[in-house]
């Protein structure tokens, strides 16, 4: 069987589209039999004609089903990262040189999505795929099919758009496992602005993030003020894979949870995974790098 080579962008050529009768097609074939028998036994020409018309329509609709897929271009869109246990969402764009109706897209063995391609522009389809394990989730071959117009035939093709999504470990909360990088706890002096202890309020400046605005004061009409926190010197959080007890996957899950929590709290932290040190830092890029490191730990950076 001819299979399409994997590519980010695929245009369906005539020989890559296969056609098979559907169950409805077989049912029609079975229904044509009795109709023909009626025509033969009653020597009835219009009955013959109607039977032949159905047969002719079946043949014509075969061409139409084939034609619906022919020249359809599939383009891989971005795939969003997700956590294990959830579903990864792949985007696919479909285009063609003319309008196409009712093209079904889906992973093998899963429900398909019907989409119409407009005369101009592309149709966007989002397909979900369950992410069971962390690491790279490689999308299987996509099945594109068309039963249009009569549903008697299914024209289909398997397409590999080389799509993959990064799956982070499943976050699970567990026993506290954060430790301070500096070791000592509580006896240090506040060392400038930080994130640890509340110190007071100051006037809002354009560079301040929304996270530390004093909304209560704002609602009382006292103007925009910013809460100031003091950072404890040498007090960044350290997340170390090797220092945790338990099986690897569980540790990764717990670290993942910790990364999410620390990020949502806006605290800087450092992650040590297999000799790699990330941070200490805060922000979306750091979060992404940490989650990626956790997702791919021990799996290699491949693809």
């Amino acid at each position, binding site marked *: 069987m001819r299979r399409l080579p994997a590519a980010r962008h695929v245009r369906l050529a005539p020989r890559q589209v296969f056609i098979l009768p559907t169950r409805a097609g077989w049912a029609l074939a079975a229904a044509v039999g009795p109709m023909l028998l009626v025509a033969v036994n009653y020597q009835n*020409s219009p009955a013959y004609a109607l039977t032949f018309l159905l047969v002719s329509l079946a043949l014509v609709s075969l061409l139409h089903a084939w034609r619906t897929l022919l020249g359809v271009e599939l383009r891989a869109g971005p795939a969003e990262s997700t956590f294990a246990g959830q579903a990864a969402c792949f985007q696919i764009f479909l285009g063609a040189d003319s309008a196409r109706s009712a093209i079904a897209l889906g992973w093998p063995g899963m429900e398909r999505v019907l989409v119409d391609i407009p005369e101009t522009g592309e149709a966007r389809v989002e397909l979900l795929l369950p992410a069971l394990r962390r690491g790279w989730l490689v999308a299987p071959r996509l099945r594109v099919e068309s039963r249009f117009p009569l549903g008697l035939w299914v024209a289909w093709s398997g397409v590999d758009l080389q799509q993959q999504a990064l799956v982070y470990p499943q976050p699970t909360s567990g026993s506290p496992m954060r430790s301070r990088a500096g070791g000592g706890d509580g006896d240090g002096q506040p060392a400038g602005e930080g994130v640890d202890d509340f110190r007071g309020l100051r006037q809002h400046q354009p560079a301040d993030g929304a996270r530390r605005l004093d909304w209560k004061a704002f609602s009382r009409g006292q103007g925009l003020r910013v809460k100031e926190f003091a950072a404890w010197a040498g007090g960044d959080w350290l997340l170390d894979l090797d220092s945790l007890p338990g099986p690897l996957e569980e540790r990764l899950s717990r670290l993942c949870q910790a990364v999410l929590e620390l990020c949502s709290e806006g605290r800087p932290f450092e992650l040590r995974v297999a000799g790699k040190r990330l941070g200490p830092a805060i922000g979306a890029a750091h979060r992404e790098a940490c989650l990626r490191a956790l997702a791919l730990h021990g799996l290699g950076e491949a693809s």
Partner: protein
Amino acid sequence: MPRHALSWLLTAQLLVILPFVAYLPAWLVLLWLGCAAWRVQVYRMRVPLPPSWLKGLLLLAVLLGLALSSSGFDLNAAAALLVAAFILKVLEMHRRRDALVVVFLGFFVLVTGFLFDSGLLATLYSLVPFVALLAALIGLQESELARRPVRTLRLAGTLLLQALPLLLVLFVLFPRLGPLWSLPQVKQQGVSGLSDRMAPGDIVELSQSSALAFRVGFDGAAPPRTELYWRALTLERFDGREWSQDAAPAWPSAPQWQAQGEPLRYSVVMEPSNRTWLYGLDVAQTELPRVRQGADFRLEHWRPVDQPLLYPVTSWPAAVRELTAPAATLQRALQLPDAGNPQARLWARQLRADHDQPQALVQAMLSHFREQPYVYSLRPPPVGVHIIDDFLFASRKGFCLHYAGAMTFVLRAAGIPARLVVGYQGGEYNPSGNYLTVRQFDAHAWVEYWLPELGWQRVDPTFAVAPERIEQGLEQAVDEEQSFLADAPLNLLRYRDISWLNGLRLGWERINYGWQRWVLGYQADQQWRVLKEWFGILDGRALAGALLLLLGAPLLLLTVWLIAPWRRRADPLSRQYARFEALLARHGLRRAIGEGPRDFAERAAQALAAQREPILTFARLHEQARYADQSQSGHGLRAALTRLRRCLR
């Protein structure tokens, strides 16, 4: 299931069952109305689908209703059951698959409808529900995002047109078989026609019917009207009241006769008669298989004719029939009731005494009819016990069966073997199609008598009384009496003297004749004749080859047309932009490689300062259509381009 699919399906159902109202209980339409309304309410989530006990109850009620309104299990009852199932299935339609069942059932019901009416109009009408069913089928495949139902319909029409060439090829080339087994027949309501028992009243009934009996297309010129005696069968037995077919079962099937003179070749398209005999001019032979020549020179089909039947005939009008007739045949031709009609018997003896030669006797009888005040009338007075006597000597008023019956009776009483022949006489000639239409009111009866040296001879006493009946037709024969189709004031045949109306009627009948002849009659023998003469196909292998070839060709054409490599084009936006570029290129402005549309537009606007505004407008619209909103690209851009073109002129 999608909305359009449901609405098309319900529409198609109504269209499918409407013609059945003429044959099946009319309350089926009410049943449809109820089921459809329920299903629509289900779609609107107002009510649930009926529970199974309710469905069972409904089914029982419908079955009971059908049983009450039908008489025994015949084809009508079967069709009613099918239609009822087709309607009730709507209440069981949960999923796409159920809807498919309804659509396929619909196709089957359409086919069944042709058993009731296979005329041109009915067939053309069936295309309407067919397209609706097709639209429903397409609707089932469409995505839920509502599209206009008209588009679905248009697609159905397109598919139908594309399927037509294939349909033609299949229809012409697909080998026709004879019926594989016998099936119950449609009860034709009010099929009138000749029967094997005829009393005068039957002919009166027939004379009021303008229903088609058969049509005849002649290969050459049609013979004169006075020669058109279409034999159906002979009635040999007279019981004092009515004439009937002799019940003797063991007839020698093939009578002896000699072909003489020029043969006549023609083909007959016969309407269903539910009888076994066919019609032909004496002496008729046909190539149609399973038709034999009866002992009385009739053509006998192997089973009752319940579908329109086309058969080619060769007739030998000058043939000599049975110079030596079997004794049994002659004995039957001399049968008389033991008693009754004494005056007629007396007259026969007198005639016998006056004339030595049988032929002279026959001539004497004809002169008697001609000279005495006999009247041709469709409204004869009631007769008593001796119907021949009363007619011959008292009322002297009657029509063909009276004259032919009386003559046969007297000839037999005079010792001359004679029999009554019933069939049709004449017919309406349609000059534009060189064919003849014979209707029920052309039914006729005449006499055949046998002479040892001449065989059977035809004689028509009606011709002696009312020659216009033979030369012109029934309408002219009963002109004074005004009894022609007296019960049907709207019948077009009554207005044959209005020329434009008659022209329309003849045109329509000609189309119908073509339909009968070329479509309905396209069965086994006709097919082989056409294949031989038109395609030179002589055997099954050539037929299979032609079938494959001619099926492949339209499919290939359609494939090419669907892919249409020469029509492969960029999207409309790019086409518009290409036109824009071509337009500016004519003014010496070409977009450089790597130059973006916006830069190019700026440059062009500077170079053609006078057209600055339209150029920039087009560029802006194009940019918007391309990158901002893809849905409404068309019209504004086209208008801007047209404006630019006008400015540049």
